[in-house]
């Protein structure tokens, strides 16, 4: 390169840069084209974000349909309109709704979930919502995780057995039992469990009172009944769905073909039935996780479990807009994320979808 003039050297460098840039572009676009998996992942995640944005609009609008509610909740409907207006001003409710939405969204993305509306209305300067809900969220997640850990193997086992023995007595028992359990509201199951384990047997506490800040593991007895309650209903759902999935796989042509080829029944069950019945079960578990998100609301209330569900109910009754918005937004985000992750896992598991994406 020494023989080149500085001008030519600049030219050379510039074209090198251009080449690098072009190579980068080719690499990313090319890899997108060569890797349908990547394309699909990006598209699916994108869809999820769009849905979350739409959900955020619903959340914000839903809580603001009737403005001024924290104020009226605190002061009562007969209160002095001037007092109400003053509180509204403190909360920023006199600004146009679209502006408030974007402000809220902007803050949320940066991690600031706002201040508790009720606290601010009562004169506090700062009462970050996140601090109030952080610990309950952890408690709820622990509850949900423990339930899922028990749910997955149990439902697979029972669902597969029910599907394989379809029509015979084990299946009849499971089918009827699940039909009954999935109709029961969580608070009914909870009330009956309390009646059995507390009133009658006196082995478990009726409420799950935990000292604030301490993890549920410090008092495992407090977890037993909430988990059992959540399990009772969600297990009924998942078992039914896995059962139906198993039955439909058992009816396929390729299972019949394997039998016609003389392959042993054990092998048929393992390689032909199980493998193909498992993929849909990912969706089933995703659905059950989503169900749990809703189920905790009632279950935590029944047992006074200090999770985000009972927190939400309190916030709703006291008309604390900001707290409701924050909890709802996080729950919705988790809900949508579960969907996206489940779709991606199914994509990885099912070879056919991989090449068609």
């Amino acid at each position, binding site marked *: 390169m020494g023989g080149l003039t500085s001008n030519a050297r600049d030219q050379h460098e510039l074209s090198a840069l251009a080449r690098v840039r072009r190579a980068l572009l080719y690499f990313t676009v090319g890899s997108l084209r060569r890797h349908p998996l990547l394309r699909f992942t990006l598209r699916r995640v994108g869809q999820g974000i769009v849905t979350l944005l739409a959900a955020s609009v619903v959340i914000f609008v839903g809580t603001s349909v009737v403005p001024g509610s924290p104020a009226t909740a605190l002061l009562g409907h007969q209160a002095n309109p001037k007092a109400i207006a003053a509180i509204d001003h403190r909360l920023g409710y006199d600004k146009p709704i679209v502006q408030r939405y974007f402000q809220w969204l902007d803050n949320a993305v940066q991690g600031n979930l706002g201040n508790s509306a009720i606290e601010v209305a009562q004169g506090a300067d700062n009462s970050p919502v996140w601090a109030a809900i952080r610990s309950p969220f952890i408690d709820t997640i622990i509850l949900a995780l423990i339930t899922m850990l028990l749910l997955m193997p149990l439902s697979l086992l029972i669902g597969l057995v029910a599907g394989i023995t379809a029509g015979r007595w084990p299946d009849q028992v499971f089918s009827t039992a699940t039909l009954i359990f999935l109709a029961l509201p969580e608070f009914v199951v909870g009330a009956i469990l309390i009646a059995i384990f507390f009133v009658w047997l006196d082995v478990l506490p009726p409420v799950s009172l935990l000292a604030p800040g301490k993890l549920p593991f410090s008092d495992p007895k407090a977890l037993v009944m909430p988990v059992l309650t959540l399990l009772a209903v969600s297990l009924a759902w998942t078992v039914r769905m896995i059962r139906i999935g198993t039955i439909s796989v058992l009816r*396929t*042509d*390729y299972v*019949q*073909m*394997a*039998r*016609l*080829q*003389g*392959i*042993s029944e054990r*092998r048929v069950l393992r*390689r*032909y039935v199980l*493998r*193909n019945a498992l993929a849909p079960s990912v969706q089933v578990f995703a659905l059950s996780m989503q169900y749990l998100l809703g189920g905790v609301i009632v279950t935590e209330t029944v047992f006074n479990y200090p999770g985000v569900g009972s927190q939400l109910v309190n916030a709703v009754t006291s008309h604390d807009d900001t707290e409701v918005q924050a909890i709802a937004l996080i729950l919705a985000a988790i809900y949508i994320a579960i969907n996206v992750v489940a779709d991606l896992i199914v994509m990885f598991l*099912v*070879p*056919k979808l991989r*090449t*068609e994406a």
Partner: protein
Amino acid sequence: MEGDTVVSEVASTLLGVENLSVTLENGRPIVQDVSFTLAAGETFGLVGESGSGKTTTALALLGFARPGMRIVSGDVEIRGERVALHDEGAARQLRGRLVSHVPQDPATNLNPALRISESIADVYKAHRGSEGADGAVRRALERVHLPVTSDFLRRFPHQLSGGQQQRVLIACALVCEPALLVLDEPTTGLDVVTQAHILQEIEHLHRERDLAMIYVSHDLAVISQIAERVSVMYGGVLVEEGPTREVLTRPRHPYTLGLARSIPTHTVLHRRLHGIPGVAVGGVQTGCPFEPRCEQRVARCGVEAPPLERVGASVVRCFESHRTPPLGVTDQIAIGQRANGAPVLSVEDLLAVHQHQGRTVVAANSVSFTVGVGECVALVGESGSGKTTIARTIAGLHKPAGGRIVLAGEELAASARDRPRALRRRCQIIFQNPFESLNPTRRVIDEVMRPAFTLRGLSSSQGREEAGELLSRVRLPDRLAERYPAELSGGERQRVAIARALIAQPDLLVCDEITSALDVSVQAAVIELLVELREELGLSLLFITHNLGVVASIADRVLILNRGEICEEGVVDDVFVTPRNPYTIELLEAAPSLHIAAQ
């Protein structure tokens, strides 16, 4: 019934089936007392239509009964081993090892989660253990002429074409070197050209290793090409069996005769097809199952079940087989005289596209053709060639991207709704799937009446009267007029669809593969009906199909469509006898033809 087995002329009997009977759980018979024998290296055809019990028989040879069915009796003797088929545990020993099965639809019969090498290896390991599995898999793939590369071995079923999938299933069937291969309509789901290739493959195997095969099919043309002996089943009973040439040129049983007269073949032009009157009904227990539809029946036939009797080189199950007329001179259909004057339909530079799995496919690329008054024009092509899209565009169900369609001198709007009532009336379309063409929640006569109201403004009573007349004309039994479609067979439903189209008094009838989903004899009956109606009413027909035999029978002119373009057109006599375009030649060669004349 005692099993009168026929010992074939070839020396060693490889397989003997005796008294095979299969019933439903409630006792109704599906297969009654079927017996036959097979020699080593022989290909035996098993022919029948829906309800004949042929598939059930094929499965029962492996000791397999579908859910809801039971094998009640039957012994099979193969390579000296005797197995009772109703004992599933014992029969299971046969599968894959002595007798293998090749199914109809390859796509759904392969485990989607396994690579094809694993699928084939599974069958080997089930009978021979893991030793030598790899070698066996490779040898099996070589036998069916599939690549033995590691890339191909690692593929999943959905990454293969239909023809390749079928070859994989044949490889699975051969990997343990069984004595007998049972093939159940293995080419039905494939396009004509691929069908021909798979058939070649099968013929190759036949010659190569003295493999005995039982080929189950409804297609006599295919059977005539590859089977040395054939047996015909009807209503669960074996009605005739013998050397293929004998059975096809001089059928003894009235049903076999009816079947032979209904098969279209593209080597005989303008041959009138005849259907068999009546509808197939299964599970008959007294007398001959064909008796209700038989033209030769006597009182005895309804009461006593005929035994198998030898006639010449065949056996027949009929009391009156001596009265069965010979196949006879085929009567011809008069070629529609092309009336001078303006054509009924004129398609000019039609451009039509549709979406298929996310991609845009050009179904019609500047396609032009005409249909004259009283003419029958056939539009032929493979699936995906665009013929259905063209039909739907003419009917106003699909928006074209360019070109014009002129009906009776007036240009047609793209959407049916935008066309004036008078024009909508003059062009009627009939669809392929008989099970979807009628509203399940409406009675047959009400369904037929509807166009009379919407397109001709008739009153309810007038419409009903005409509908009743038309239903008689399409030979639908009177009692079915007030029923719901669920109680009608496929052929009956298509007749209703025809009646519904006719009540509008159209000039042009567009028939989109209307017989492709029907049994051979039912197809012949429907086509027979159409030909009659055309002669009576002077209808013009645009007949869309992929079956060249039907074209040869019914059409005056033919258009060959290849990937959206008309590659050849002309009078049927010219195109079929002296085809010019290579694609036309390929189609004509691949189509199976009944080798009657040659024999």
